[in-house]
C-alpha cells in the first residue's frame, strides 16, 4: 500500500524516535558499564540485557511496518551520491539494529551465561558454549557498537544537513518540524 506522500506515518515516526532513545541509551549504558567497578555496573547490566531484546523485538516490528508502508521519496534533486549514502546508511542502521542484540545474546550463550531478562525469565542459549566463539562475538559486540555510534552520528549529521543547509523537507518527514520541501 505504497502511497506518494511527503512524510512518514505517525506510527513510523513514533517507532523511529522510540528506537532512537532506546539505542542511544543502550550504547551509553554499554560503554559506561564496561568501564566501571561501581555498584551501578549491576544496575546497568540488568537494564542492558532486556533493553537489547526489546530493541530486537521492536526492530523486527519496525521492518515489517517499513515494508508495509514504505517511505516518502527523497527529493528529486538530491545528488546521486547522497541518495546512495542515504540508502546504504539506512540499510546499515537496520542491519546493526538486528545484529547487535543477536551478537549480545549469542555471546552470552557461547560464554555459558544464563540470559536473564527479569527474575526467573530467561532466554535459551542459541549457540554452543565455546570459548573461541565467545571471544569472537565479544569482540564483535564492541566493534559493532562503535560502528553503530559512528553510523548514528553520520545519520544525525545528514538529517541536520537536510534541515539547515538543504532545507528540503527530509528532516520534516521524520521530525514533523523543520523546513518543508518546496
Amino acid at each position, binding site marked *: 500500500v505504497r502511497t506518494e506522500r511527503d512524510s512518514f506515518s505517525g506510527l513510523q515516526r513514533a517507532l523511529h524516535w522510540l528506537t532512537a532513545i532506546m539505542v542511544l541509551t543502550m550504547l551509553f549504558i554499554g560503554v559506561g558499564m*564496561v568501564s566501571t567497578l561501581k*555498584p551501578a*555496573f*549491576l544496575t546497568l547490566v540488568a537494564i542492558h540485557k532486556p533493553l537489547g531484546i526489546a530493541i530486537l523485538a521492536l526492530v523486527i516490528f519496525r521492518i515489517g511496518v517499513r515494508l508495509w508502508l514504505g517511505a516518502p521519496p527523497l527529493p528529486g534533486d538530491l545528488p546521486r551520491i547522497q541518495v546512495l549514502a542515504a540508502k546504504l546508511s539506512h540499510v546499515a542502521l537496520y542491519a546493526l539494529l538486528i545484529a547487535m542484540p543477536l551478537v549480545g545474546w549469542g555471546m552470552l550463550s557461547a560464554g555459558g551465561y544464563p540470559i536473564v531478562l527479569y*527474575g*526467573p525469565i530467561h532466554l535459551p542459549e542459541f549457540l554452543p558454549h565455546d570459548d573461541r566463539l565467545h571471544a569472537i562475538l565479544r569482540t564483535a559486540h564492541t566493534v559493532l557498537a562503535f560502528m553503530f555510534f559512528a553510523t548514528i552520528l553520520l545519520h544525525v549529521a545528514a538529517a541536520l544537513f537536510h534541515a*539547515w543547509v538543504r532545507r528540503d523537507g527530509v528532516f520534516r518527514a521524520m521530525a514533523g518540524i523543520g*523546513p518543508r520541501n518546496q
Partner: protein
Amino acid sequence: MSDEENPARHAPLSPLAVGGRLAVIGAVLFISAVAFVYVGGWLSPNRLTPGRMVAALSDRGGNPLGHRRNHAKGTCFTGVFEANGAASQYSVAPMLAAGRYPVIGRFAIAVGNPDASDIMGRVKSMAVRIVSPDGQEWRSGMNNIPVFVVSNPRDFYELTLTQDIDPPTGKPDPAATKRFFAAHPESAPFVEWNQTAPWTASWADQAYNSLNAFRFIDAGGTSHLVRWAMEPEISPTPVPHAALATMGPNFLEQDLFRRLADGPLTWHLAVTFAEPGDPSNDATKVWPPDRKRVDVGTLIVQKAEAEADGPCRDFNYDPTILPNGIAVSDDPLLAARSAAYAKSFDLRTSEVADYPYTPGPGDRP
C-alpha cells in the same frame, strides 16, 4: 512536490551562512562523540575500570594468559547439591526447594600465577554453579577466610598493586604490603587470620565463606539479609608450613583426586541470618557468632578433573549470577567482582592459544 520549476521560497544561504550551519552540525557531532568517550572512561585515567583492575591482578608473576586473572590455579569438580528445603521459607530460589541439583564447581588458590606452587595458596576457594530444572543458575565464589581483606574495590586495587612484581627485583615489595595493612585497620581481622590460622594440605577440610552479604527473597517478597558458608564434614588437619614445602607444587589437586578415589566429599551449606545493625556492605566485618544459622542442604562432590579440559574451565563464577529468590546486597565488592570477573573471562576466552585444551583422539588439530 518537485521544486525545479518553482522558485525556492527559502532565500539562498550565503557561503558564510552555509559554513556557520555546517560548523554547528560539526559541533553537535563533536559534543556527542566526547560524551560517548567520556562515559566510556577514556578521558578518566584515574577511573578504576575492570581493565585496570584485571591488569593489576595479571602482574603478580607467572604467565596468566589464558587463565583466570585471580584464583588462577584450580581444579574442576562435579557433584550434586541436595537441598533439604529448610531455606524455602526464606527464599523462592528453585534450588533451595528440597531436591537434587547438578553442580559444576572449582577449587582454587588465590594466586595470580597459574603455575604457582600450592604452598602459595594461603587463601583457598570453592566456586559452585548450581542449576535448577527450569534453567536458573546460582553461582557462588567462596573463600576459606572468615572475613575479606578489604571492604571496597579501590582498596582491593591498591592492595593488589602492592603484590605486583617489582621489575628490578622480580618480586613484590614486601614493605608495600606492610604499609598497606598499616594504613588499613579494617584489614586487621584478615591479617590476624593470615598469621594464626593453621595451614592444611587439602581443599577438602576447609570451610568456604560467601564473605559478601546477599538477600534471600521469600514468597511474600520479604528480604532476609544472609551470608552463607560451605562447611566440610571432616575437620581440618593442620600441617606445619615447613612440611608443605616438601610436598611438591600440586599437592592440593593430588589430595583431592586421592580422597575422591575413596568416595565423595560432603559440605553443608550453612546460611547465617543477619540481625538489625549487622553490616550488609562490609565484608571485613564478621557478624556476631550467635546469629541464626540454618543448614539448608548438602554439597556432594563426586568427581574432580584437571582444569585444562575440565567442565569448570569455561564458566565465569560471577557471584552476582543468582536465581530468582536470591539478590545482591549493597556490598560494593559484589559489582566489582562481577565487572572484573567478566573482564577476566573476556580476556582468557580470547587467549585459548596460550592455554590449549589437551587434544583427545579424534579432536581437530
